[in-house]
């Protein structure tokens, strides 16, 4: 297991917002955590990144208990969080310098450039974030995270601020990068289609308060999953319908129902 959140609980003041959260992500797997806004999804991912300590339970990366930010875990923030006074290249270089302090600057620059090329920003290396579109900024943020060559990549609703077209484009990009690098991904999202396109498994967050993880859905659809192809698959439609229905039902009945969802039954996909 690359990343484990085990019985994680978090409260702000007297208010318990996350209870009994359990997420297991295997090596090279992509798991999407899905749920509506305000449930504590960001809190959850910040705990996985070691920026927030859980009140109970524990977070483990490759078997070690997480007590703070780690070199082998990278996080992409929801709002990009690029430093506006640095160029795209500079933003990535800052991370690379920090991760590989022994490297000479030429190697740092080449490494940063390689990852910016990987996210198709070779033409915008010298531009600063204010001169980049939202999609391009998120690509820089992604390059910065990937350049750290992390074992685990955490994504906090990375595409939620983008328009639909850019969003679809970046989803395909993320899927490709995941296939290429095979790094372990935990991604938080509120978009069912996005989750299905990217994830091996989908873990719904059952609204509370306190919110908690619900029974998972296995996404056993062929890759690469382009939207055009998925739209013709019955298995895709059924999966989308049942995830959506689960989330809608959960939103109506905040108290947890232990009703198991036949997720694996949906896994009979035909190309």
């Amino acid at each position, binding site marked *: 297991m690359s990343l484990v959140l085990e019985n994680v609980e978090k409260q702000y003041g007297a208010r318990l917002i996350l209870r009994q959260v359990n997420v297991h992500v295997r090596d090279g797997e992509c798991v999407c955590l899905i749920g509506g806004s305000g449930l504590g999804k960001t809190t959850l991912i910040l705990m996985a990144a070691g*920026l927030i300590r859980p009140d109970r339970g524990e977070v483990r990366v490759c078997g070690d208990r997480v007590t703070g930010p780690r070199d082998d875990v990278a996080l992409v923030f929801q709002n990009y*969080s690029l*430093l*506006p*006074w640095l160029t795209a290249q500079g933003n990535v270089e*800052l991370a690379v310098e920090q991760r590989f302090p022994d490297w000479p600057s030429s190697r740092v620059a080449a490494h940063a450039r390689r990852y910016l090329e990987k996210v198709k920003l070779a033409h915008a290396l010298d531009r600063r974030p204010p001169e980049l579109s939202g999609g391009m900024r998120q690509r820089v943020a992604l390059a910065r995270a990937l350049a750290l060559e992390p074992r685990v990549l955490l994504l906090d609703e990375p595409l939620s601020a983008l328009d639909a077209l850019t969003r679809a484009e970046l989803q395909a990009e993320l899927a490709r990068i995941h296939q290429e690098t095979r790094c372990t991904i935990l991604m938080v999202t509120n978009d069912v289609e996005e989750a299905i396109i990217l994830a091996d498994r989908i873990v719904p967050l059952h609204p509370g308060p306190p919110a908690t993880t619900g029974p998972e859905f296995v996404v056993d659809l062929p890759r690469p999953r382009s939207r055009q192809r998925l739209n013709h698959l019955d298995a895709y439609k059924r999966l989308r319908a049942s995830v959506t229905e689960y989330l809608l039902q959960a939103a109506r009945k905040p108290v947890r129902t232990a009703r198991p969802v036949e997720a694996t039954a949906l896994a009979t996909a035909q190309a």
Partner: protein
Amino acid sequence: MKRSLSFVPPVLPALSELWMRRRMGNGSGRFLLPLVGFGFLLVLWQVSSWTWAKDLPSPAETWEKSRIYILQPLAKRGEMDQGLLRYVLNSLALVAQGYGLGLLAGTLFGLLLGCSPVFTRMFDPVVQMLKPISPLAWLPLGLVLFQNTRGAAVFTIALCSMWPTVMNTALGLRNVPQDYLNVGRVLRLSRLRMLWKILLPSALPYMFTGYRLSLGIAWLAIVAAEMLTGTPGIGGFLWQEYNALIYEHILVAILAIGLVGWVLDRCMLALERWITTSMS
């Protein structure tokens, strides 16, 4: 009622057009309107010297009596008889020393205030108390401490001008967006790198606003310092001419002080804008 309403509209478009032309900067308004302002000042001056202020020299008399200082700006006929520009440069040299010291001390002090809540609790009341003290009050203390006028002047300028820098540097550091701090934490930057790579660049626009305000105060303080110490600068000249009862020279010195202060502020403003736009 109806008549007055129908009369009003043509006035507004005319005014707004003038305003627009001024804003766009391609019309005569850009230069014309400020000239009207200066013209008003000149008229007020002239009328005053005719009517209620009999001792006030008129603009023409002022020009006549003091043009040697303006037309030979770099002349040096004696220690306390120099060209206007030469006086100004003397003053600027003194300001540069005091202001430089004030910037250094103010920036460091502001950094400490901005980074440490404990330090803020401890020293904020002290700052608030020292801030409103006038240069005229500091100068005698400076004379006592340094036993010479130059040291006293530098001391006074530094002490008076540092506060905007202190306050703005601290403010800039407190206002660093949480997102940037999170980036630093995720990358596990050391405290020093955090300061250098994230806190300072983020606070820089605030700091430059502080530097500009500080320069304004430094220029205010120099005149007071020179008047009290008789240093050969623009303020010393002003005070000397007051004692010599040459009022024309006082007026010229006042105008020169204002003009130089204005130019200094414009320069700093340009620098501040450049920093702000290149930082965000």
